[in-house]
């Protein structure tokens, strides 16, 4: 499982802004709206993919992200 946590739209992202400001000096033109976030990789044992997704979504909302300022997206990367 993969959980991507990103700042909600409208929440200032000083890290993203700093990265964006550095890009022209490196010769990258036309790159904008740089946003930073965190990615988490987890293995969840479950009877079903839906069950695993439910667990991931729950912990992504309760712990991995702060819903006041962040969004969390859950992706199933693979099933073993």
């Amino acid at each position, binding site marked *: 499982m993969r959980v991507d946590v990103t700042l909600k739209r409208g929440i200032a992202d000083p890290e993203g802004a*700093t990265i964006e400001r550095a890009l022209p000096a490196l010769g990258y033109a036309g790159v904008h709206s740089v946003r930073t976030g965190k990615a988490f990789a987890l293995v969840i044992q479950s009877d079903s993919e839906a069950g695993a997704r439910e667990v991931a979504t729950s912990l992504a909302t309760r712990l991995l992200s702060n819903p*006041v300022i962040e969004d969390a997206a859950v992706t199933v990367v693979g099933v073993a």
Partner: protein
Amino acid sequence: MSRVGVVVFPGSNCEHDVVGALTTLGGRAELVWHAETDLAAYDAVVLPGGFAHGDYLRPGAIARFSPVMGAVAALAEAGRPVLGICNGFQVLTEAGLLPGALQKNRGLTFLCQPTTLVVASTRSVLTRAAALGQELVVPINHFSGSYVCDDATYLALVERDQVVLRYRDNPNGSRGDIAGIANEAGNVVGLMPHPERALSALLGSADGRVLLEGFLAAADDAAGARALVAAP
């Protein structure tokens, strides 16, 4: 005399300053380990500054699940004074005991400097002894102290007189220059500046006194109310 519990999370580092400050002001304060689940013996509680659980994930994100937090919520619900300073403020927002969140400072700089605060409300357990509009010099010491919340929350905070302290010169990008807020009842307060480090003019400022004296008076009131309830 009231008893104030000062919670120690793994990684807290201002707990002794808080106990020292409250004791200097004539209060009775004791350290309480975060694994404690019963705070019934305390009239008030302080969540001190530091880096609870290493600030891993986000400041306060793991501390909010510490065993003690259920008891902190119960104390808050009972109307007793609860104060979160710096990291403690971050823990209170993560725990949902105060609205909004603390984001990285605008400019991504760790800020360690005196700031001038303006008392925006005296309706809280921290600011009850101060005067509205009074300016207080209190140091800040944080990386994630920029207060953020959505429009509806901000309007509600202002409408219900929950903004208790504002920065005169906003150092970190906080919405509305907010340095500290209270819950609607005024008994739960969080602020980024450190009043426990502003007790002596010789060491920079004594302006933290009026805040912590107010908090101790609120703790004494809570103790008095409990004594009345306990009396046959």
